[in-house]
């Protein structure tokens, strides 16, 4: 491979990383807002949040991407820049999976903690911020780590829309060289390295957060079997 082609791949990595960071931030915001809304005391808020999660987890990420790229401009007249369209579709979809993780972790906090908050006459928001979240967030890290890897894999989907990410650069190189085994092997390796770094980073974060709570790192087989699935709809959650 020539240096020109490697430059293409480097640009692809940059687009993939940008997309990963932006959609990751959007997904995290959506996950926390919707996940906390699902534990709200008003049924209508819980219902709307539940409806959102079921709809966005029910349909496929690729169909969402097609929808944002093709239907939004025609139906509502919103033509988004490809990067933002991709961010929107991925962030909303993976945010819905994240919301399930947030809900499961909030529900798995010992009920006595919530009752303690009520006894101390904390407002609901104070209870969430000072009592529930500090205990629930460390529990969320391992499933969030899995979800982040799913999101990384999801970013490859935007290449179907012609966005110049890592997977798209592979196609360009394949067309230039008329040879595919080498370039696809490199691209898969690059994805693997990115995923490996992300996993490592999340594991470090988990260690740091759990150090303050005195909880063991890692999960038991029981948790593994009933973990809130990162890609499937309607898994029971950690509740």
């Amino acid at each position: 491979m020539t240096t020109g082609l490697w430059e293409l791949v480097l640009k692809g990595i940059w687009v993939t990383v940008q997309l990963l960071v932006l959609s990751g931030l959007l997904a995290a915001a959506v996950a926390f807002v919707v996940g906390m809304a699902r534990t709200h005391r008003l049924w209508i808020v819980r219902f709307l949040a539940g409806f959102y999660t079921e709809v966005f987890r029910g349909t496929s990420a690729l169909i969402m991407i097609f929808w944002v790229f093709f239907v939004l401009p025609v139906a509502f007249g919103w033509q988004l820049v490809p990067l933002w369209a991709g961010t929107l579709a991925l962030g909303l979809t993976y945010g819905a999976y994240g919301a399930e993780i947030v809900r499961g972790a909030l529900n798995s906090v010992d009920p006595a903690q919530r009752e303690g908050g009520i006894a101390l006459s904390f407002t609901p928001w104070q209870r969430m911020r000072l009592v529930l979240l500090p205990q629930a967030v460390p529990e969320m890290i391992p499933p969030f780590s899995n979800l982040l890897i799913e999101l990384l894999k999801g970013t490859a989907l935007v290449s179907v829309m012609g966005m110049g990410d890592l997977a798209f650069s592979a196609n360009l190189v394949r067309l230039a060289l008329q040879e595919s085994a080498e370039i696809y092997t490199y691209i898969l390796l690059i994805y693997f390295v990115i995923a490996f770094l992300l996993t490592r980073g999340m594991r470090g974060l988990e260690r740091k957060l759990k150090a303050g709570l005195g909880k063991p790192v890692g999960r038991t087989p029981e948790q593994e079997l009933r973990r809130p699935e990162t890609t499937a709809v309607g898994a029971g959650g950690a509740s």
Partner: protein
Amino acid sequence: MTWDWGAVADFMPRFWDGLLVTLQILVLGSLISFALGLVWALLMRTPTRWVRWPVGVVTEFIRNTPLLVQLFFFFYVLPEWGLTWSALTTGVCAIGLHYSTYTMQVYRAGIEAVPAGQWEAATALNLPVRHTWTAVILPQAIRRVVPALGNYVIAMLKDTPILMSITVLELLGEARLFSQQNFQFTEPLTVIGVAFILIAYPASLLVRALERRLVR
């Protein structure tokens, strides 16, 4: 925003064709992933690390890289190696392989969740290794993993549209073809989006019910 029911009616025959292909991919892909996942899980329990290590690395690699790129890899590289499969066969094998690395973890967790006493009892009864697995461990493990496997079937359903990228005409492929021929994007894409929700949501309720019944 304009909604044209005529376009929906025109799209429906293609929709059923696409649905058939999607379900075909789902069933065959699931079967491959269930079988292969069990093989990986059992290989990961062999005593020699010369088996465990390579299997662990390969499955980790497949699990952490995008299905889309793997599909392209198989679609373009296999013919270079002299294997000319149809797009559908390639896609089914790739998606089955990809998901087998997930089901493998489910099986592993299921096997680990079998109480140690069962292993000890099998040893005490002097059962041969094969019988220990087929008569004692696996029946108990499989029962526990069914709901988790069901979740991955639903996940796989939502990954089938990716096969469109290697020219398989499943639901999304049909919808895209229709929209390009008729310049109507809103209707077919919305119809298949809704169809996915209508299939995935009841399926997830079913899995939840299974979970309540089988995992106690």
